[in-house]
């Protein structure tokens, strides 16, 4: 039976999606959740080694290299699949409740198909299957993101244009290699590519460039970093966690599949290195560091909660990219670790924001406030999530960020390290802003009636909290699978056991660290509880230091200052053209459209009509002779 498990993982969900299209609302979302849960349990139960690769010939013979549907569960694929399927299971449980009559976004069938093709991308063992699943996933994402509203669709369109550009160049790269070694299989092409890179053959770099274009656009690194802000923010609220947590990781998976084996298996002297790192990886390092900084700055100054989290995802991908570009065992492990952590804490954050929007219908941060009183569990989840995201010890984020910095120090990449330091302090700024504007501050009169989320929706939140604390307490939970992945690439493992991780310059026992911070927090909580008589001071009084707000013309409503939270810092950074790349891409698009209309009307104009035959003949002769 296990022979047909892999194709089932890929083909079954889309078929179920087709079926779901005809089911009533609740059954659809239930089917979605059950499929995601089944995928997660199957993958957790299975060890990568045991699965037999599956391959079947496609009905297109005589196309040169034999075309086929080849699926295989490599350790890297297993790691990414387990992480994303666990996260998806909890997201779909959340969506199950989120989509009641009022909020139903009707995307369950598309979501189901997306799950199937998503796992298809990880399981694919040949470039054609990889391309087919990759392309269909981006088409489905476009339809889901642009499902309801016009401007959401144009957001999706940016995303689709970039990923179409990427996937077609991926196909061209795969063909380029297939013409030489006659097969589309991923491992064959990697062996050839490594051979080319090692032998310094000129064709190696364009092929590598073609592959990376696909992965850079999907992983939203520097030049292509502006689409997540549109797409994640405009996507249906319960879909954003999946989009931001899982879907954006396909790009990183691609980098893992291509860059890691190629650069780790080329002999030392083959590629010119800058400070010990092959130059492409060095460039990737700087690109990702830049992405981290830009992502953080953009996140600090945005007012929309989902857009803020989207920019934070871009920043976190910058961290992962920099870690990966350290070209060391520690760096690769740190990248994988942070990737897994990001899935959890970013998923938690988006889920809580979705829960808040589900209850209050608000998304602009300055219109919310004081919700901690009404939704304590959501508040706790968001609190733990931002502690993890900021990389503060008790939570999981600290372990992976610490490993990233260890990797950078090991390779003396000091400038990239400083960029990441700047970015992570910036992270704390925008994370606190989100926490404060949504949960702390003045509870506005409109949200008096707001109640906590129902039980089923609270379940995933509790799961996230437990996961964050568990990994914070024992990073080995994730480092063990990471070591399997490293072993599969022939690298030696990161020296660690369940709770202790040995970095380049130091080692940390996370259990004791967790104990210390936990004890401190408990102590503070104890004082808070025993603290005796406390007068409940409405927020408004301490803002106006005792003055009567009415004579200042202030109402609790207007005094929520979350609107321009970091205005002074904004002035500080006003010199840096933050929105530059969006403006650049918009200008390029407008220029393309103008040339298009020039062509459209140019030839059609009457004055030119009779001469274009002559021009055509002249062009035909010119092209013919021009050789």
């Amino acid at each position, binding site marked *: 039976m296990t022979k047909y498990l892999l194709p089932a993982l890929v083909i079954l969900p889309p078929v179920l999606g087709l079926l779901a299209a005809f089911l009533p609302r609740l059954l659809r979302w239930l089917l979605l959740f059950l499929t995601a849960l089944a995928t997660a349990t199957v993958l957790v139960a299975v060890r990568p080694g045991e699965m037999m690769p599956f391959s079947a010939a496609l009905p297109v013979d005589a196309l*040169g290299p034999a075309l086929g549907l080849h699926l295989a569960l490599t350790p890297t694929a297993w790691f990414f699949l387990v992480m994303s399927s666990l996260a998806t299971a909890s997201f779909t449980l959340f969506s199950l409740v989120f989509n009641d009559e009022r909020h139903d976004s009707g995307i369950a069938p598309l979501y189901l198909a997306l799950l199937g093709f998503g796992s298809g991308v990880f399981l694919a063992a040949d470039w054609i299957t990889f391309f087919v699943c990759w392309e269909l996933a981006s088409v489905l994402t476009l339809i889901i993101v642009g499902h309801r509203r016009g401007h959401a669709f144009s957001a999706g369109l940016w995303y689709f244009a970039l990923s179409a550009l990427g996937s077609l160049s991926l196909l061209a790269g795969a063909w380029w290699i297939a013409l030489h070694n006659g097969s589309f299989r991923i491992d064959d092409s990697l062996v050839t590519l490594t051979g080319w890179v090692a032998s310094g053959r000129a064709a190696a770099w364009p092929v590598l460039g073609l592959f990376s274009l696909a992965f850079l656009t999907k992983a939203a690194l520097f030049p292509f970093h502006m689409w997540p802000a549109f797409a994640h923010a405009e996507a249906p609220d319960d879909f954003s966690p999946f989009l931001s947590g899982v879907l954006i990781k396909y790009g990183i998976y691609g980098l893992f599949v291509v860059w890691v084996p190629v650069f780790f298996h080329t002999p030392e002297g083959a590629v010119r290195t800058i400070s010990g790192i092959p130059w492409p990886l060095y460039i990737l390092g700087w690109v990702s560091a830049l992405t981290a900084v830009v992502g953080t700055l953009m996140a600090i100054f945005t007012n929309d909660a989902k857009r803020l989290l989207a920019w934070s995802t871009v920043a976190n991908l910058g961290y992962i990219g920099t870690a990966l570009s350290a070209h060391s065992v520690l760096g690769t492990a740190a990248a994988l670790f942070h990737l897994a952590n990001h899935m959890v804490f970013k998923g938690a954050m988006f889920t809580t924001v979705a829960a808040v929007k589900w209850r209050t219908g608000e998304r602009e941060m300055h219109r919310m406030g004081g919700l901690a009183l009404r939704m304590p569990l959501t508040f706790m989840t968001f609190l733990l999530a931002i502690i993890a995201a900021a990389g503060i010890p008790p939570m999981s984020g600290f372990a992976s960020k610490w490993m990233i910095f260890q990797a950078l120090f090991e390779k003396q990449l000091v400038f990239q390290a400083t960029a990441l330091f700047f970015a992570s302090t910036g992270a704390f700024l925008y994370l606190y802003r989100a926490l404060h504007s949504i949960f702390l501050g003045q509870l506005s009169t409109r949200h008096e009636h707001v109640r906590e989320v129902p039980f089923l929706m609270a379940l995933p939140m509790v799961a996230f909290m437990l996961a964050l604390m568990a990994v914070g307490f024992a990073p080995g939970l994730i480092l063990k699978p990471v070591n399997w992945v490293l072993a599969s690439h022939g690298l030696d493992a990161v020296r660690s056991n369940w709770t202790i991780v040995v970095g380049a310059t130091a080692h940390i026992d996370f259990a004791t660290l967790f104990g210390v911070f936990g004890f401190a927090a408990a102590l503070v909580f104890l004082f808070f509880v025993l603290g005796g008589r406390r007068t409940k001071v409405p927020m408004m009084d301490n803002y106006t230091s005792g003055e009567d707000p009415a004579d200042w013309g202030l109402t609790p409503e207007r005094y929520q200052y979350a609107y321009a939270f970091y205005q002074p810092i904004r002035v500080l950074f006003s010199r840096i053209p933050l929105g530059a790349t969006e403006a650049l891409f918009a200008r390029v698009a407008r220029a393309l459209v103008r040339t298009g209309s020039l062509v459209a009307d140019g030839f059609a104009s009457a004055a030119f009509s009779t001469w274009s035959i002559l021009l055509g003949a002249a062009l035909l002769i010119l092209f013919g002779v021009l050789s």
Partner: protein
Amino acid sequence: MSAAVAFIAAPLAAAFLLPLLGTRPTWGTRAASLLTLGALFALGAWMLAGPVPPHVIVLGGWRAPFGISLYVDASSLMLVTLFELLALAALWFQHQHGQEKPVSFDVLVLVLMAAGAGAVLTQDLFNLFVFLEIATVAALALSAPQTGSPRGVIRYWLFSAVSGAAMLLGIAILYSGAGTLNLVDLGARWGRLAEPVRWLSGVLILLGFLVKMEIMPFHGWAPATYRRAPSSVGLLLSGVVTGLAAFSAWKFFALVLRGGTSLPPVSGVFSFSQALFGLGALTLILGALAMLAEKDGKRLLAFSTISQMGLVLMALALGNPRAVRGALFLVFSHALGKSLLFLVAGIAVSRTRRSEWGAWRGLGQSSRSLVWFWFLGTATVVGLPLVPGFWGKLSFVGGALGMGMWGKAGVALLIAATVAESVALLRVGHGLWEHADLRKRSGDVDETSAAAGAAPACKACAGVSYWAGALAISAGILWMGLWPATFTRAFADTAAAYAGDQPVSVVRTSTDAFAPRRDGQGQVKP
């Protein structure tokens, strides 16, 4: 075995007889024309069910190169059957949704079918010229607008007439030089022609094909003509006329100009492969960009056809078997996908009386099928996976990358053009899907949403012809996309048969055809 002649004789016979039933369109004339097309489609499907051995049909009893012969193999038969399907869908759609047209509309569609079959099957150069002229005359008359300015169609006539004259001059030069008109024979004698005769006749003849394939800069007529012509005629123009022009251009290019094998100069200083590749690349990218700028729905589809035909021309110019297979796939997928888009555009225009796709906003709310067929059509034309276009682009990229710097530049242009084209088409698709009432909520209520709101929200008036045509074409798309084995084998055999110096399966009329046919004992062989 000579059943294939029916594809030419039957529509002509029906076309001649149809006016006898009167010039006013009655249900009788409509049924007759639809039945003829249906019967021909059934015949094609039946012939394709079994294996189709490539065979030659000699006409008039005189074998090539004296008489005219038709060469019938699997892919040409598939293309002819595709034409019948498209014509059936277009004509039925026109009867139900288009303006009232006299019987001569059905007559001209039948004549166009005969011309399409003739151009695809014939092996004689002058006969090919005659069939192309018939197709032009039929297409011109069909696309003449009843209201509004015929300037687009006049320019179409001008381009066709001038390129027809140029083609005739090219045929005259080629005949006087080579002494024969059969394509295979011309190919055999191509080597002995003088250099100016070769490239001059080649260029002049290619002009005729390029105008019908709407290659830039010969495309000036296409946008204006598509805009004013009925959508069903737009379907025929972009599916049938460009299809037959592309297939016959490739036959001429592969058999006579021997462009089959390589990009570098084939005949002396002038390389036809390079010339066609350059023009194709120019058309591909400029057509796609023009789509981004286009506000008018039907002009948008015109530029999409222009861009796709540029890609087909590039694939044909490359000539290696993989690229040619990609070209044939693209011709089929473009014809199928584009016809879906035209059916939807036809409904949209007949509802809103406006051809700007901005005015079609919200139509998808009243009949959901518009949106699904539009997305399926876009996927096919753009070449997303699991639809025929994908196989076409896949084999084109494979073929192009193997051809050095030119090929790689072509692939880069293909990527950019595909992205631009998919963005342009998806934009319109979402316009159809968008909620009409949404515009009110988001505050910018303009008259289009009022018009869209006012458009009759009846599902029934989408009509049976629209449903039947669209479902048949979608079935074709899904079959060709999910199970393309039969198509790849057929296209591979055709590509192999035409390429190379010795077209194996095409009747070999070697130059000794003129020696008296006496066998050893002096007996006269029949």
